[in-house]
């Protein structure tokens, strides 16, 4: 059995001339919480829809739990909880939705459903269309969790939720689900939330997967370095960005900090600062080079 819960190979999706996904190679380890980050329209939802069998890939392949997306959809859907559009059957109450769902999933657990309904404080006797946005999202998550899946795939689960509800949801995801060794793939552009719970991160922009690594490795590798001096290097594989302002040059490095610093010093440069970077800063450097449409939170 493969150690990967999800694997895509050269996954490509075209809408007419537009490449929504361009040869994306993604690897989600079993038991991990994978934060799938990107701006609006970056290709996150398209990827998740292909994994769910809702849209076919133009080329390339995607495997979910060792099964081929688009071919083995029934098995994938039986073993994976998908929350994509956060829209259920609007005229049904929470209780009716539980009954409706139960018959579809051999691993469905009424006990789990009851527990999450209590934990998440969802009014189960109210029609879905009459629930608040937060309760709608919670009910979607409840249905996915009660099917006892091996893998949860969530598209922007915390978008437009208040901080309290967000915290409640994330706690359930981490403490109840992921701690059992199960896998979560969660797309988001709320970087601070992902940084709180994810152990792997993939950053996608304009259909290209720019980065995929353990969050700890990313934090350890990326550095912001401010230097002054003559004959500073303009490009090298480890330099992600370089900006000069008022005699101070700022580099963002994606690897090789020690060797780079040693080389700078050997060339007579003065190193003013070496700063660690958080996920938001890294995201901005990777994705927001043009500084267009970068989420406010990412800029903070």
């Amino acid at each position, binding site marked *: 059995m493969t150690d990967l819960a999800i694997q895509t190979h050269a996954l490509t999706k075209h809408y007419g001339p537009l490449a929504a996904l361009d040869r994306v190679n993604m690897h989600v380890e079993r038991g991990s919480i994978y934060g799938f980050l990107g701006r609006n329209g970056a290709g996150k939802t398209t990827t998740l829809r292909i994994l769910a069998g809702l849209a076919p890939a133009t080329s390339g392949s995607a495997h979910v739990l060792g099964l081929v997306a688009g071919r083995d959809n029934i098995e994938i859907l039986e073993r994976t909880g998908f929350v994509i559009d956060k829209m259920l*059957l609007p005229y049904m109450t929470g209780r009716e939705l539980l009954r409706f769902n139960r018959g579809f999933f051999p691993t469905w657990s009424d006990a789990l459903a009851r527990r999450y309904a209590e934990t998440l404080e969802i009014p189960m006797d109210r029609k879905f269309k009459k629930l608040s946005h937060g309760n709608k999202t919670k009910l979607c998550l409840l249905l996915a969790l009660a099917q006892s899946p091996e893998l949860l795939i969530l598209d922007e689960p915390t978008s437009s939720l208040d901080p309290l509800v967000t915290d409640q949801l994330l706690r359930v995801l981490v403490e109840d689900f992921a701690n059992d060794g199960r896998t979560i793939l969660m797309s988001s552009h709320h970087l601070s939330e992902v940084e709180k719970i994810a152990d792997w991160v993939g950053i996608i922009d304009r259909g290209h997967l720019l980065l995929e690594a353990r969050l700890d490795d990313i934090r350890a590798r990326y550095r912001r370095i401010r230097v002054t001096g003559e004959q500073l290097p303009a490009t090298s594989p480890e330099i992600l960005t370089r900006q000069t302002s008022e005699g101070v040059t700022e580099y963002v490095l994606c690897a090789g900090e020690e060797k780079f610093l040693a080389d700078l010093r050997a060339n007579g440069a003065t190193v003013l600062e070496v700063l660690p970077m958080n996920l938001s800063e890294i995201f901005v450097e990777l994705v927001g080079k043009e500084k267009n449409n970068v989420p406010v939170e990412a800029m903070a």
Partner: protein
Amino acid sequence: MYLSKLWREGRIFTILAAVALLLFFAGVARINSFVNMAHLQNPTPDQVYGAVVGLAMGLLYSESILISFWGWLSAGIGVGKNFGEDSGSYLLTRPRTRAWFLWNDWGYTMAQIAIIVTATNLIFLLAIHHIFALMHMPAAVPVDAGSATISVTFLILLVSIAVLLCAGIIYGLSYFSTILIRRTSGVMLGAGILLGYFILGGVLHHYAPSVHLPGLVMNIFAHGHHTGPQLSGGLAANILARAAVVLALPFATQLILDRAEI
């Protein structure tokens, strides 16, 4: 599970349609029969046969219109409705094939149509049998200038099949349209296609009188015979062709649904 969802979405239509049809046709069958029989003092057998055939044809057309209208409304319930409500991705991430959802939708509505048509026509049939029994006549109608007879049961069976096929075509076409444009209002497209068909029929009738488009309601009897009712030619082939269309429509819908990106 899924059928309970369909029942939930369409139960008002179903109950109203069933009650309306049962009351309407039971009433019509009894009242018309007795009025006709009472009006004709000591009716001759030919007058009785004429009244029965007239009633059967009245049943065929009125029932076709009512049931088809209900089938048209029912087409708005199902996967197309879920697309329109943005719950399509939820529904289609339940572990079933898309074809499973489609054939459940189709089978559920067609079964309801069949049950309502059967129940209504059984009441009608019993009423007619009662009239024949009162008149001590065998419950059969001579056709083809008296060269053959068909039982009233067979006549009502033909009526039921014709109604089922008409409603099946209208339901299937409207359902196809809801999947095509991905919302309940697709039924309007279905109605538009039917209207276009009628207009085309009218245009052809005007400019090319020899060309006749088949009507939506199958003709059981040939028109223009003064020697009594005459069964339409090629009735079996006509039934088979219409049944093929009824079945082809969900298969065509499946082709669209299987390729749809959600």
